[in-house]
């Protein structure tokens, strides 16, 4: 089967147009910031400026959320990306948002995010491990008699 030159040309032109349209849609589609709380900074090139709700950003822009700060990125396809505190995020395309992929660095604070496994008041000394005995060998009865031999109420007044 032979394909004419004109058919090949039309197919090639169509392919180029379709791919250009796809690239244009993914690159130019702006992302809107919503629910900005705390110190949220955006970088559009060289400097960071304070973010406000409604601000539009292009893919490639960088967003930084400080402690106790968060923001939502709303893409035109309806995808919403929520950034929590202590996050450095590079804005991706709507497709990347939908696929949940993107460049992000997050600092996870130790407190709050990782609750203690066991209530601390119920943790008991393990005599087999002897974990907390180290370094306290000198705290036997000798240690109970003050080095100055004087422990009256007057030199230990409560504050």
């Amino acid at each position, binding site marked *: 089967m032979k394909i004419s030159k004109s058919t090949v040309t039309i197919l090639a032109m169509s392919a180029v147009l379709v791919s250009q349209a796809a690239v244009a849609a993914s690159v130019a589609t702006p992302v809107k910031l919503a629910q900005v709380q705390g110190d949220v900074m955006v970088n559009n090139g060289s400097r960071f400026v304070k973010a406000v709700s409604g601000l539009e950003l292009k893919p490639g822009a960088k967003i930084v959320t400080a402690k106790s700060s968060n923001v939502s990125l709303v893409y035109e396809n309806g995808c919403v990306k929520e950034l929590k505190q202590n996050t450095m995020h590079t804005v991706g395309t709507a497709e990347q948002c939908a696929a949940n992929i993107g460049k992000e660095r997050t600092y996870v604070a130790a407190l709050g995010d990782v609750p203690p496994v066991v209530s601390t008041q119920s943790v008991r000394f393990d005599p087999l491990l002897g974990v907390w005995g180290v370094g306290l060998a000198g705290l036997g*009865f000798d240690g109970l008699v003050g080095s100055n031999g004087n*422990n009256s109420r007057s030199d230990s007044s409560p504050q």
Partner: protein
Amino acid sequence: MKLIKQKKWLIFGIVATFFAWRIIVVNVSQHLATEGSSAASAWGGNIPEVLLSEAAVIANADTKRARAVTENAVFYNPASGNGFMMLARLLELEGQIALAGNAAKMAHFLAPRDADVQLPLGAFWLRRGLPIQALSHFGAAIESKAALTKTLFPVMLQIIDTPQTRLAATEALGNAPSWWDGFFMYVMKNTTQEDTLKAMYAARNDKINHDQRRAYIDHLLAAGFYTDAYFVWLNGLQAGQLTALGNIYDGGFEQALEDEGFGWRSSSNKGFMLAAEPTYGHTGTKALHIAFQKKLPSSTLIHQFLMLDAGTYRFKGNSRLDNLSAGKGMRWEIHCADKDSRSLLLSSEHFVGTDNWNRFDMEFDIPPEKCEIQTLRLQLNAGNDYDETPFSGSAWFDDLEIVKVD
């Protein structure tokens, strides 16, 4: 009349002699008790300190008798924290845990700031499986006797390094006074668990000092925790300093040079002076000024860590040179600063001689791998060792920026 006067003097003499004798007896017996001498009881059989010493000697061999002696000591001095602490330890040995706990609480009530009581109190609660309570007693002991840090820091580190107690322990220490700084530095040097440091830092929150923050950020950078280091630094900035954030922090040198984190980090050397100060012909109120006073070896004069994504960028800035003579001169360099890679990404021309304000602009690439963090450095190239030309003059830099190329 005369007889009455003589009687008064006689009574006064007897009373004075009695008190003098008691003073001698009490002090000698206390001294001997402190020395651990068996002669102490011969001098003062009912002096509390002597009784406590006696109880300590026989505690392990005859616990019941030791307790009786201790109760005697507490009878003679019911305000003795040491007495109740001894009682707590003996009751604990006898297995009377509830009574021992009450005696320990009494000891704390009577001597809340006495290291000689607080230290064994901490050990007592540790044995009883209450490490958080133990920490507070150890803290009180250190407050009244700073030398105890050597003994107690290793024990306290073990408590806060234990995952089950870590958060509560670090929170309990969060409001500790000045010794916390020393403890934080000790933990940074000795712990193998980053979470311990992270929890300690978070619990201290806004009260953290500049030196501790800087040391912690440097520790995180050295360990390769770049994102953590960045946010610890970022969250320590004041509101006014946030406005200087960019691909380069404070490229206009308008903020104070704090030598911390991802801000400008300057080297100190008597051979040159480095400061952000006003001059003419620049934007803002200040520019970076580097003035040379004597010959120096090649070195980094000032640098800054960067957190740039992979891609192409332009590094721009303004420079002015005032009779600058410094070997081959200075130049700006950008390197990868990952643990695994220190490759050079950009190197400017050498700045040397005399020139009015000039704009420089050059392009560089950040590779996609092994370059998560970078350094921007002002590097001195001192030239050949045999060149005896003295270093003098100065250079100014302002409006440094790194712009992403689309």
